[in-house]
């Protein structure tokens, strides 16, 4: 049985579901941040799979999708830097990374 687009989409969806349940279940803000990265990468996998699937008339993949992945990785790297700086600032103010201890904005 050969590997088809649907297999890649299913793997990507399962990775996204793992990341999503991690965001909901975990209470450590750093682990939640890692699970966000997992979800971003699941989206990247489906983009690259579609790019490989959708060959143009010249037999080349659709490189627009791969450029979108490139931008996603760039923005995610910037996001990680800013997010971790916010977490460090938060830790300095509160001495905790537990989301249940950081609920002043909760209604």
């Amino acid at each position: 049985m050969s590997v088809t687009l649907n297999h890649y989409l299913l793997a990507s969806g399962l990775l996204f579901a793992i990341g999503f349940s991690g965001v909901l279940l975990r209470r450590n803000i750093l682990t939640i941040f890692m699970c966000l990265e997992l979800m971003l990468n699941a989206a990247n996998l489906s983009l690259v799979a579609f790019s490989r699937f959708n060959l143009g008339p010249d037999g080349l993949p659709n490189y627009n999708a791969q450029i979108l992945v490139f931008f996603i990785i760039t923005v995610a790297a910037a996001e990680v830097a800013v997010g971790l700086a916010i977490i460090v600032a938060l830790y300095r103010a509160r001495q905790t990374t537990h989301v249940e201890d950081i609920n002043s904005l909760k209604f």
Partner: protein
Amino acid sequence: MSPLLFWIFAALMLVFGIGVIINRNPVASALSLVASFLCLAALFVGLNAYFIAVIQVLVYAGAVMVLFLFIIMLLDLREEQRRRFNLLAVAGGALVSLGFVAELVLVLRKFTLGQKPFAPIAQVDDVRQIGMTLFSTHNLPLQVTGVLILVATIGVVVLSKRDLK
């Protein structure tokens, strides 16, 4: 990519992904995440996206994860202590995740276009092709990304100052 390699790397990616959320020690979570990203890079190689695979290893498994480990060790985080879970939140989260997966399976069963095998690819000079597209069609987004990274750098420096004023 041979089907065997796809199954091995996809399974490893998902197992290490589960490892991220079941490890209580943040360092173990981060290392599990590195392994998951490396398997994902292997899947990218299988999809003939060599440039994206290299970027994935360099940026994610390299830079981003070093940053994560650095922060975890800087904050000297202990293992997450066991606390009472909010049962409603856990049930709701599991329900949403399982619902998402079930819906995905239902959609993919009807998606007959994606059940064909991949067509053979013509040539693999993907770095050149990506470069050409990036600097011609998508030049403005590239410049904007440069500005975004500059803003992020300044933001990090401002956030890291000891007295935020």
